[in-house]
């Protein structure tokens, strides 16, 4: 990172915020009890920051964000009502709690509804080191974005236009509490730097981007290399060809492979399972992947983007395997879904926290060599993923691979298959892990898919 002018404006009174938000949660729970609720839970969050966008060397936007919100769920026995607002005044809180109670008068009793059982609630809040404010003012952010975009535009003469580079920095505090005695909070930061440029060859334009994101400012990728990667990716798309309709092996580049892990998570999530809206119903104990692949969740990695000390019901998050030696070992459950399925919560209310699939020890060029001939997919488009059936059909962009090397860019083709089959046909995972989210994976080589083109 280059030196940055020090002008702290974000990290003011973070602990004060937490204390104030804890008071608000306690106040909400008290108000709910007063109105006769047999149980209640509340979440309150506050986030501050700004983002700048620079385009063609000029500031385009400076956006200051200051978001807050509170949500409350009340239970009258097994009946439930929820309400939320952005207004933290006592009057608004009273009205919001009342609105939730009013709704609970009309909803019907659901025997599975309720707070997390006390034994599952987080007893200790591990320090995860998630808060790293960036002492950066908008002027310095503009300089940083400008340098990033300049680097992109200087990379190649075919970069003829830009959608700009951005820098964004935010910090926030979240507090959750419920009437089973849980009250927890944590603060975190989120910073990013990215760039989108347009490459041109004759009449054809292609756009691509690159970005870096981290909780720790110093761990963001260097501005010059972010710009250069955006430019290279856009230029590499030029003069793309169409390919014939055929079956072929496919490598999903890491950032696209992350989406495949996401589809797995959705299919083994409690909500999809108890609604019987998943192609992976009743598949615990079954082999989903070849035996050399395991997928595990690690919620307590310091500074990681997906880390969280407790889930959105106050349940302690814990490291565990979802898939072990290819076999599905755990679903992704919150308390409600767990009760519906006759199981126990896995601490996943609100989602997963840092999922990892083990790599096969080779980098992307080695994966290309292993595939020899087929498609490298760098982008997928559209909504063609059906969690109920596992059917997968998406638009894609990428490269044609022959003799283990990139031959030329390809576009306007689709990839189709079924996720269950794609998982079972996973041949190798690269060590080119994309760390920009809470799903950590390298590129995936899948044995065979249907490709529709010309």
């Amino acid at each position, binding site marked *: 990172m280059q030196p940055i002018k020090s002008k702290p404006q974000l990290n003011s009174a973070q602990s004060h915020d937490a204390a104030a938000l804890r008071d608000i949660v306690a106040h909400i729970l008290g108000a709910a009890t007063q109105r006769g609720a047999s149980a209640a839970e509340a979440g309150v969050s506050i986030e501050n920051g700004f983002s700048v966008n620079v385009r063609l060397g000029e500031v385009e936007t400076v956006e200051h964000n200051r978001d807050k919100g509170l949500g409350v769920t009340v239970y009258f026995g097994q009946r439930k009502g929820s309400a939320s607002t952005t207004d933290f005044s006592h009057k608004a809180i009273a009205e919001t709690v009342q609105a939730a109670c009013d709704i609970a008068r009309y909803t019907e009793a659901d025997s599975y509804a309720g707070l997390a059982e006390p034994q599952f609630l987080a007893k200790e809040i591990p320090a995860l080191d998630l808060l790293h404010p960036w002492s950066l003012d908008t002027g310095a952010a503009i300089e940083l974005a400008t340098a990033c975009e300049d680097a992109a535009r200087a990379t190649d003469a075919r970069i003829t236009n830009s959608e700009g580079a951005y820098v964004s920095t935010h910090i926030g505090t979240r507090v959750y509490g419920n009437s089973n005695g849980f009250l927890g909070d944590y603060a975190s930061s989120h910073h990013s730097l990215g760039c989108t440029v347009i490459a041109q060859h004759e009449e054809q334009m292609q756009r691509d981007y690159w970005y870096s994101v981290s909780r720790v400012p110093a761990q963001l990728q260097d501005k010059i290399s972010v710009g250069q990667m955006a430019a290279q990716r856009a230029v590499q798309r030029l003069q793309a060809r169409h390919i014939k309709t055929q079956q072929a092996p496919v490598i999903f580049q890491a950032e696209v492979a992350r989406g495949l892990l996401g589809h797995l998570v959705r299919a083994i999530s409690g909500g999809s399972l108890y609604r019987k809206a998943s192609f992976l119903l009743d598949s615990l104990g079954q082999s989903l992947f070849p035996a050399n692949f395991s997928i595990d969740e690690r919620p307590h990695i310091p500074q990681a983007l997906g880390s969280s000390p407790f889930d959105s019901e106050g349940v302690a998050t814990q490291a565990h395997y979802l898939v072990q030696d290819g076999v599905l070992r755990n679903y992704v459950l919150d308390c409600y879904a767990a009760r519906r399925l006759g199981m126990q919560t896995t601490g996943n209310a609100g989602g997963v926290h840092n999922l990892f699939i083990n790599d096969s020890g080779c980098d992307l060029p080695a994966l290309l060599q292993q595939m020899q001939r087929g498609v490298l997919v760098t982008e997928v488009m559209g*909504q063609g993923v059906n969690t109920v*059936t596992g059917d997968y059909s998406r638009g894609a962009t990428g490269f044609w691979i022959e003799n283990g090397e990139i031959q030329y860019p390809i576009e306007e083709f689709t990839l189709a298959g079924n996720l269950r089959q794609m998982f079972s046909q996973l041949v190798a995972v690269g060590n080119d892990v994309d760390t920009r989210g809470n799903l950590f994976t390298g590129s995936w080589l899948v044995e065979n898919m249907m490709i529709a083109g010309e």
Partner: protein
Amino acid sequence: MSPSALQIARHALLTPAGLDDQHLQQVLQQILGHRIDYADLYFQSSRQESWVLEDGIVKDGQHNIEQGVGVRAVSGEKTGFAYSDEIILPALTSAAGAAREIAQHGQQHQVQAWHTTQHPALYNSDDPLTVLSADEKVALLQRIDAQARQIDPRVKQVIVSLAGVHEVILIVASDGTLCADVRPLVRMNVSIIAEQNGRREQGSAGGGGRVSYLYFTEQDRAASYAKEAVRQALVNLEAIAAPAGTMPVVLGPGWPGVLLHEAVGHGLEGDFNRKGSSIFAGRIGQQVASTQCTVIDDGAMLQRRGSLNVDDEGTPTQRNVLIENGILKGYLQDKLNARLMKMPATGNGRRESYAHLTMPRMTNTYMQAGNYDPQEIIASVERGIYAVNFGGGQVDITSGKFVFSASEAYLIENGKVTAPVKGATLIGNGPEAMNRISMVGNDLQLDTGVGVCGKEGQSVPVGVGQPTLRIDSITVGGTST
């Protein structure tokens, strides 16, 4: 006589904070004093609720109240933006201070005297949520659930949701704009899972608009959504693998108009064209679609989901011809991009909320009817696909590539619709696909009112529509050869 939108908005947004026109003038003048070309304040208050039925019981209801004010300052191509969820003078002043910090150059301006324009109301300003009692809402959901289950024993899961928003906005701008809008929006959705011999498939249907909940009980609309969702799920139980490759595709009327939204609409938004990043940039007057195509974006349609009396900058909405007989006629503009491109604002400046920046967006986008009988269009195809429902789409406006995924489609064999197919994704290039439209039907339909459009992280309600049409060749992403 009912109070005007402006009276309602002043009462809801300004009076509780003790704010009057003079305060707003002062804040705007304070921003303009810093060499800013244009400034606006967007006050918003919204109340929304949703009710969801699942497993035969109404399990949960949500209620949300939100309000705030967004402050924008524009200097040349630069925009400064800040917002506050407290509508009080100090918060307004502080947001104004943050927004104006972008100014480096620009001329000294004076805030123009307020002017308001009268426009016929496209929708009723009454609260759409209160026309039914909570008991009646619950009973409606239960009735639809029972009706859906009665249609066929293969129906295993029914989820019915009912959602409504009542929103009041007030816009004041340094160009003299002073206007308000009171916007109702309701939506109902039915989602079904049907099961047969261990195979499960889904279907969903819904509708709504800028109307009240009574819309769903009138003409048995709610029941028709249940029927439609069940029908789709049952069709999908019989679906075979879709073919893979390039072939003719016939799109049904109504919701498949998402084609226009993706293949054309986004690429015609003013911001992308001003920046030269759209495949349609600089092409006004050129042939960008076949001569049978006339595409319109109309934000001034009565009670439609995508309609607005005024856009989020106070510009009255209107009927904008985007493409006429295949020739590109115009772009969708907000004030900023219209000014920079020296074109008129078209009433397409929209934002998700006070906490988001305005951008040019679509409203209700549709293709005009042509001359062909829909049956004639299907009969013209020897081997291809007839797609009647879609999950949604996506476009890369720079390369023009777009994708949309069919949720209900059939094979066409020798001019006849035959077996249902599953999982067909269509991929094409906007202008290329539009130029391959060879037949346009006489059966223009608008969608039932369920569209949500996403752009740069902001969601806004939109409508689409089209008649049956034939695209001579487009890539279909199935699994079967």
